[in-house]
């Protein structure tokens, strides 16, 4: 049986810590390694940060829904926002040699997760699916 949790938060940065704690605990329940847990926590946090900053443009009262599911071979997080549609083609990491503040979130997400699938086809808003497959050591 798949095990799923759902967290709903306002798009206010003060709630990010709650999301990280929940993600970390779900990863522990899934038996993931410490590194996999930290990576999942970072990816979901960065994805929420991008929603707050780019989709909701800093408005603190919009809705973010995070669904986390434990599968036998992976853990999956689905993030939903209900803001302006973002074209997945425009979501790019910045050049790392260009040392400047900002623009690292997408790079970090793609570095630590096995899959990051951006989808703007829901009727309202956007959806991001993040997947981390279990390693043999986990």
């Amino acid at each position, binding site marked *: 049986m798949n095990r799923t949790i759902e967290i709903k938060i306002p798009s206010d940065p003060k709630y*990010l810590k709650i999301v*990280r704690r929940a993600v970390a605990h779900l990863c522990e329940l899934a038996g993931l390694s410490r590194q996999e847990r*930290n990576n999942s926590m970072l990816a979901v946090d960065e994805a929420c*940060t991008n929603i707050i900053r780019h989709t909701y443009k800093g408005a603190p009262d919009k809705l973010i829904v995070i669904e986390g599911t434990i599968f036998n071979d992976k853990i999956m997080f689905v993030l939903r926002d209900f803001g302006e549609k973002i074209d997945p083609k425009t979501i790019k990491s910045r050049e*790392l040699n260009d040392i400047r*503040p900002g623009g690292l979130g997408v790079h970090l997400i793609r570095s630590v997760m096995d899959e990051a699938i951006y989808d703007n086809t829901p009727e309202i808003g956007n959806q991001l699916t993040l997947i981390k497959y279990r390693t043999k050591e986990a």
Partner: protein
Amino acid sequence: MKINTRTVDSAVIIEPIGDIDLYSSIEVRKTVLSLVKKQVPFLLIDLGRVEYMDSSGVATLVEGLQATRAYGGQLALVNLGSGVKAVFELSRLDKVFEIYENLEEAISKC
């Protein structure tokens, strides 16, 4: 977020306590930029009590690094835990910042 600040020799040590994310990085930025404004010659960020940092925290420190270098100052990082260090490595910024294992080593470089 609680942030301790103290001076040792010519260095000002900033010690944030807790996670540095989109929410708390605002406080860190304020502290760093207030010292940058005073053109402190050596700014040392002690991350020993920071368990988690995201790209907002990294961006804040990059901004501080560039601002200190602009007036000929130095900004260095010390006491990075494995999680925080990993974020700098993933961002390939571990070669951009001066990073020290402990305060004694960092202060000796002032």
